[in-house]
């Protein structure tokens, strides 16, 4: 028995130390704010890192003894959400401040991951400067606000003036209907063969970009242009079997069937958005791009693919409604907010950091660096902001006629169902009718039957 005593002791000790090592740690230091945000998968794009680094310096100078720890999560959009949600589940891994997409915020609020910010906002005079729609973006169904928006975005058509000149199309192009867009793309295909005529994001690999930049920009331009074609607010039900839905899918099918879009394999590559911004547009390889207002952030000075000439090379056009019916143009808006997890260990300090980031000067710096659209009145009215970048005026004007997604808890899964429908018509695996009825089926499952037919 004696020879066994030592190993037993050793093993118990080892077990004890490893077990306690798991338990403790994850330092909840009361003087440190842990900030999680999404880092670009393109190594030469460090816009947010640079900005946050500057904010960290300011904050630490103004609050001696306090520290900011930046915890970047480097992942494509869809994987960022997953990683973040896993971190938010446990107090050991939950950061003090997180960067939340408004697309997912309601879903995360329902899960109880986030803390209502109303007690902080009531005492914060700058909150009155934020425009109404932006404030509403992070307001949950319970009437409480869970995030401070750091800007919004709008969407439109970017086109290459060089390609247009070669194809004999005007430099001040403004399509009136969907057919005008397709006609322009067909002309480009015929006259400038080595260029991709038109990009519409599609399929599951593109994630929410496919749903919002692609599908919803089409869908919200069908019908009368004012009622929400996805969600019926009166009955609180999701809408199935819409003609607009089929028409929008039909547009996507046409683009890929007639080879007006990128090669299907490229379009279904998860990193395609990165190559559109970093390669296709700067190299003049893409005619028309249905995309977001934030593209220039990749081309600013100091970013990886510096391209200051973009404002001469690229033109901007409003996305038209299907047949040119009123209001004649379509835009979608989303954006990101700063939120405090319910399991955060230093929420007060975290909000102090939000206030540092959202002073007028700092907010303005961020909108410009990020090619974001201002959500503070005082910044939007500042001529320095309007003139800071070409295109800002164009996209800010779209805010008046923009749509917001029905970002209810079921939305992320509805979005996936839309991407699946898009992907199946893109690859040609199924017809528009089949894809639309598959969506209707899927919609019933993901919303627990909260579906109405129109």
């Amino acid at each position: 028995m004696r020879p066994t005593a030592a190993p037993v002791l050793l093993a118990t000790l080892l077990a004890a130390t490893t077990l306690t090592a798991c338990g403790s740690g994850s330092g909840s230091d009361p003087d440190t704010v842990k900030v999680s945000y999404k880092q670009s998968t393109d190594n030469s794009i460090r816009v947010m890192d640079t900005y946050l680094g500057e904010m960290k310096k300011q904050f630490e100078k103004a609050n001696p003894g306090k520290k900011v720890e930046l915890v970047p999560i480097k992942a494509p959009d869809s994987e960022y959400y997953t990683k973040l949600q896993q971190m938010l589940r446990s107090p050991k891994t939950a950061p003090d401040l997180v960067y939340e997409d408004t697309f997912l915020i309601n879903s995360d609020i329902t899960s109880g991951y986030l803390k209502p910010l109303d007690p902080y906002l009531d005492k914060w005079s700058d909150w009155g400067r934020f425009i109404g729609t932006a404030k509403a973006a992070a307001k949950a169904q319970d009437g409480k606000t869970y995030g401070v928006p750091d800007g919004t975005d709008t969407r439109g058509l970017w086109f290459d003036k060089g390609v247009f000149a070669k194809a004999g199309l005007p430099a001040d192009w403004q399509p009136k209907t969907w057919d005008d867009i397709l006609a322009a793309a067909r002309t480009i295909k015929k006259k400038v063969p080595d260029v991709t005529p038109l990009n519409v994001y599609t399929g599951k690999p593109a994630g929410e970009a496919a749903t919002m930049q692609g599908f919803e920009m089409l869908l919200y331009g069908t019908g009368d242009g004012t009622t929400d074609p996805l969600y019926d607010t009166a009955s609180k039900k999701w809408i199935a079997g819409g003609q607009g839905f089929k028409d929008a899918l039909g547009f996507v099918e046409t683009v890929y069937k007639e080879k007006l879009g990128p090669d299907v394999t490229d379009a279904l590559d998860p990193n395609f958005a990165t190559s559109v911004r970093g390669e296709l547009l700067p190299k003049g390889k893409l005619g028309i791009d249905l995309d977001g207002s934030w593209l220039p952030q990749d081309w600013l000075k100091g970013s990886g693919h510096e391209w200051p000439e973009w404002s001469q090379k690229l033109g901007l056009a409003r996305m038209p409604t299907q047949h040119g019916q009123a209001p004649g143009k379509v835009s979608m808006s989303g954006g990101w907010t700063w939120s405090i997890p319910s399991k955060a260990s230093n929420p007060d300090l975290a909000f102090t950091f939000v206030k540092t980031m959202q002073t007028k000067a700092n907010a303005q710096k961020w909108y410009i660096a990020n090619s974001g659209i201002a959500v503070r009145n005082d910044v939007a009215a500042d001529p320095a902001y309007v003139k800071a970048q070409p295109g800002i005026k164009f996209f800010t004007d779209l805010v008046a006629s923009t749509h917001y997604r029905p970002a209810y808890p079921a939305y992320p899964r509805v979005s996936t169902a839309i991407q699946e429908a898009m992907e199946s018509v893109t690859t040609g695996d199924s017809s528009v009718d089949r894809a639309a009825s598959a969506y209707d089926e899927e919609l019933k499952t993901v919303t627990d039957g909260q579906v109405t037919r129109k």
Partner: protein
Amino acid sequence: MSAGTRAASPPVRPLGARGAAPRRGGLLRSLTRTLPLAPAVVLLLLFLAGPIVYCAYIAFTDLQLTGQAHASFVGFDNFRAAFRDDAFINAVWLTLVFTVLSSLVGQNTLGLALAALMERASKPVRTLVGAVVITAWVLPEVVAGFLLYAFFRREGTLNAILQWLHLPSQNWMFTLPILAVSFANVWRGTAFSMLVYSAALGEIPKEITEAAEVDGAGGWRRMWHITLPMIRRSIGTNLMLNTLQTLSVFGLIWVMTRGGPGNRSQTLPLFMYEQAFQNSMIGYGTAVALLLLVVGSLFSLVYMRLLRTEL
């Protein structure tokens, strides 16, 4: 220590029949002997069995990563949903095709063929081929995935070769993605089978083969009547290991196709990942994981049966 106890135990047993007291002593002794195992057992239960039990529990709930205040127990709902889900059935079929093609037909047969050929090859050839094949095995899964992605993609090596031969090029990962990933798995995993079979072939006594040769048995007959029966056990073991490994291949397919295009190369592990982490349905994803476990154990049951009857 174990040698000492073994030497001491034989005299104890005959004595034990005499009365209760020594037996109790034996019990005490065996208890103290198992005591050193206790920490390991506790750790195993905690970190191995624990998560498995927890996972089995989650499979019966509707736990979601987001969009849900409280998870609740839903019984067999997840499993019923899976069997009604076309995407799940599709994934099961693709998994079977992938396993049969790449593990049974590819890795196993090719590994045996390579091992048999190498038996007869000269030393330098053997060393060279062995090194090349094992390199594929040594490469990390993700690296192998990228290499084969580069080989199969539209502007990839394979199409460059085809073009040079004036043959029509193909986008392999688009037209037949399941074939492309199966090939990738064969490329990567054949080395393992080859090693197992090389060892097994080396164990066959030379005399038997020579005797058969003297009796006039040709190469194929020797293979069928001598070699295969003699390495039957290695075949069984190898098949089982190969199949279980192939069933759970994730990284290779994820890197090459992400289960796409559409879901034409979405095997069960990828389907499970998509449901659990991209659609945030942890409960459903875990149920699929359990079903994958069932498929795996069915395969191993079949192999174990085969092994037993053949012995």
